[in-house]
């Protein structure tokens, strides 16, 4: 009896155990949280042509998907009743694509999930940014893109590389010499913008000089995107030399730049500037008055000329439609701002870097130009300034600017560089090996706030001794600024995605994105 009973007991036990297992595999029913993970999550992929896509299941279980894949399946299993969520943790990057997920979340029922759908597309609103030496012409930390201009309505075009992306100005300005280099017959085919029958020209002011030249109309496009503007007014720089004396004397340096100035790539540092800052026009007041005043003194912006000789030019109003305009604000869509995304950089820097300039800013998460989780900092509606608190100093006229090659702010406690680099900071001194005091690198922080001094975020940054900066892309470039300004230049962009939302055309309804009224920055 005993042996039999033992055998019987053993047999029953075994049968029950096996039966339970079979039941779980067979139907998995109703067990709830205690059920073993037996169901897979998989789905289809359409449109994926490049590599780098990484999917996650419930915030982990990274799945790297190869180029051209048409399906995917996570190796990890889930049990009945468990929630699942498929998300994109990294978008395809070479070349850039944007993938979105549908049917991506729910609760596991009584079968594997096979209906998750990943849809990928190559965005038509992204230009590639290159940071390089531009044959030694770069001032350092200059973000370049390639643009295309054509004589309106024709195929007479030039594709021009090394156009500097500048969120500190508005409008496209191209060196006449650069246009001639790429297409010797184009410039003469670009029609002048006319005002009362005469040629419109402009004196544009920048921090180290001026842009002087005619305003002409082009068909503008950004290669490899859908972004186009027909009949865009742009400034041709250097086609009417010399500049009027007023334009010269009112410039910062007050000098005729001539052959060494903004008429050559060598001193312009670029073949052109694409001003994509937070406003559409460079001089709204010029639509009302020929010469606005600053500190009580009239200054020259737009002029009307009876010939291509500057001496025939007189100060003139220019309607908003005639003025050189931020091309982004003239896009049919993607016209609410720009997003600059650059990889992290060291202070010493690298010879080249690449990133993206994405056009348009939209609310939500479902597009490659969506604000997503970026934090928004509203800017002053008139100046686009924000506030920065640095070492107890509140700089109310601060801003983010891709056209500034460094961070510019006042701090006399940081060792200044000696000539010829005066104006930059040199922590560690000016004598090799540039580590006086123990280090050639200084780490600082400041609080970035909106224009009303709220919503602050601590931002860390490093200052590298300029003598040790060897790359054309460096996160450590910094120099002396001016009172009440903290200029968050290019080093700020490295390792970040930075949104610059632009105001709408004057007198139109404001651009409001996700409840935030432009101008604003987000990162």
């Amino acid at each position: 009896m005993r042996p039999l009973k033992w055998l019987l007991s053993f047999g029953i036990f075994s049968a029950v155990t096996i039966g339970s297992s079979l039941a779980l595999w067979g139907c998995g029913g109703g067990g709830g949280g205690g059920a073993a993970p037996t169901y897979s999550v998989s789905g289809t992929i359409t449109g994926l042509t490049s590599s780098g896509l990484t999917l996650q299941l419930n915030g982990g279980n990274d799945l790297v998907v190869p180029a051209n894949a048409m399906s995917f399946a996570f190796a990890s299993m889930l049990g009945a009743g468990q929630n699942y969520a498929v998300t994109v943790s990294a978008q395809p990057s070479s070349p850039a694509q944007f993938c979105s997920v549908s049917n991506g979340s729910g609760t596991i029922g009584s079968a594997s999930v096979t209906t998750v759908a990943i849809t990928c597309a190559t965005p038509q609103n992204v230009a590639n940014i290159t940071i390089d030496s531009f044959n030694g012409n770069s001032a350092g930390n200059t973000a370049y893109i390639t643009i295309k201009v054509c004589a309106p309505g024709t195929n007479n075009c030039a594709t021009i590389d090394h156009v500097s992306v500048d969120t500190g100005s508005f409008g496209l300005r191209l060196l006449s010499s650069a246009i001639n280099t790429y297409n010797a017959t184009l410039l003469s085919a670009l029609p002048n913008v006319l005002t009362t029958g005469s040629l419109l020209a402009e004196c544009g002011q920048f921090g180290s000089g001026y842009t002087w030249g005619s305003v002409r109309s082009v068909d503008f496009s950004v290669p490899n995107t859908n972004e186009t503007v027909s009949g865009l007014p742009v400034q041709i720089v250097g086609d009417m030399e010399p500049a009027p004396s007023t334009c010269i004397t009112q410039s910062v340096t007050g000098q005729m730049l001539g052959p060494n100035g903004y008429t050559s790539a060598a001193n312009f540092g670029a073949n052109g500037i694409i001003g994509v800052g937070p406003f559409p026009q460079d001089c709204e007041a010029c639509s009302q008055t020929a010469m606005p005043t600053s500190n009580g003194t009239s200054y020259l912006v737009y002029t009307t000329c009876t010939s291509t000789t500057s001496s025939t030019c007189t100060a003139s109003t220019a309607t908003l439609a005639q003025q050189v305009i931020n091309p982004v604000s003239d896009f049919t869509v993607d016209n609410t701002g720009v997003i600059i995304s650059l990889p992290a950089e060291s202070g010493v820097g690298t010879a080249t870097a690449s990133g993206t300039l994405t056009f348009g800013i939209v609310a939500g998460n479902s597009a490659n130009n969506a604000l997503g989780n970026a934090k928004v900092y509203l800017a002053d509606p008139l100046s686009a300034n924000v506030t920065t608190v640095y070492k107890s100093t509140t700089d109310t006229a601060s801003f983010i600017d891709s056209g500034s090659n460094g961070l510019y702010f006042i701090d006399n406690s940081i060792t200044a560089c000696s000539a010829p680099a005066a104006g930059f900071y040199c922590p560690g001194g000016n004598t090799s090996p540039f580590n006086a005091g123990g280090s050639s690198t200084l780490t600082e922080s400041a609080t970035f706030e909106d224009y009303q001094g709220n919503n602050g975020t601590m931002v860390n940054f490093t200052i590298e001794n300029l003598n040790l900066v060897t790359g054309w892309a460096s996160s450590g470039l910094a120099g002396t600024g001016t009172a009440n300004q903290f200029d968050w230049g290019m080093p700020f962009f490295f390792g970040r995605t930075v949104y610059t939302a632009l105001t709408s055309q004057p007198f139109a309804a404001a651009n409001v994105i996700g409840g935030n009224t432009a101008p604003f920055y987000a990162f």
Partner: protein
Amino acid sequence: MTLSLTTRHTKLLFIWLGCAATTVLGLTGTARAELGGSEFSVQLDQARASGELRTTSYATYDCHEITTLDGALIREFADRSGQIFAVTWHAHGPIDLHQLLGAQYEKFAAASLEAHRDLHHTSIHLPDLVVDASVIMRTFAGRAYLPNALPVGVAVQELR
């Protein structure tokens, strides 16, 4: 003047402590005093009345602040002998540096040809003259001072 501009100016008065307004001397025009010159010249130009002159006294210097209706804000710092040893500016359009820098202008102009420059900045740092100027389209700002003429105990950071 829009509401936002008013708000901003209110903010400036509270936050730009480098030269808080205490005395309103009356309307004046373009700032005509110049770096290295006499503070008496601050009040010389009354011809084009387009702003206000306010003066604040500190332990070792006076700060004369001129705001004009076109949005320019000029500050001139004068030591006890009356010499202007620093100027700062912030405006929506170009600032006439010939006038503001006065006799120092030629030195600045010459040095600027060799200076560090990028699209939005010109800085010159000479032993006896420092100028940091920036132009972000729509905002023209800068500061200039005479390092050898700073009153004892004055930190450059104060000159805002």
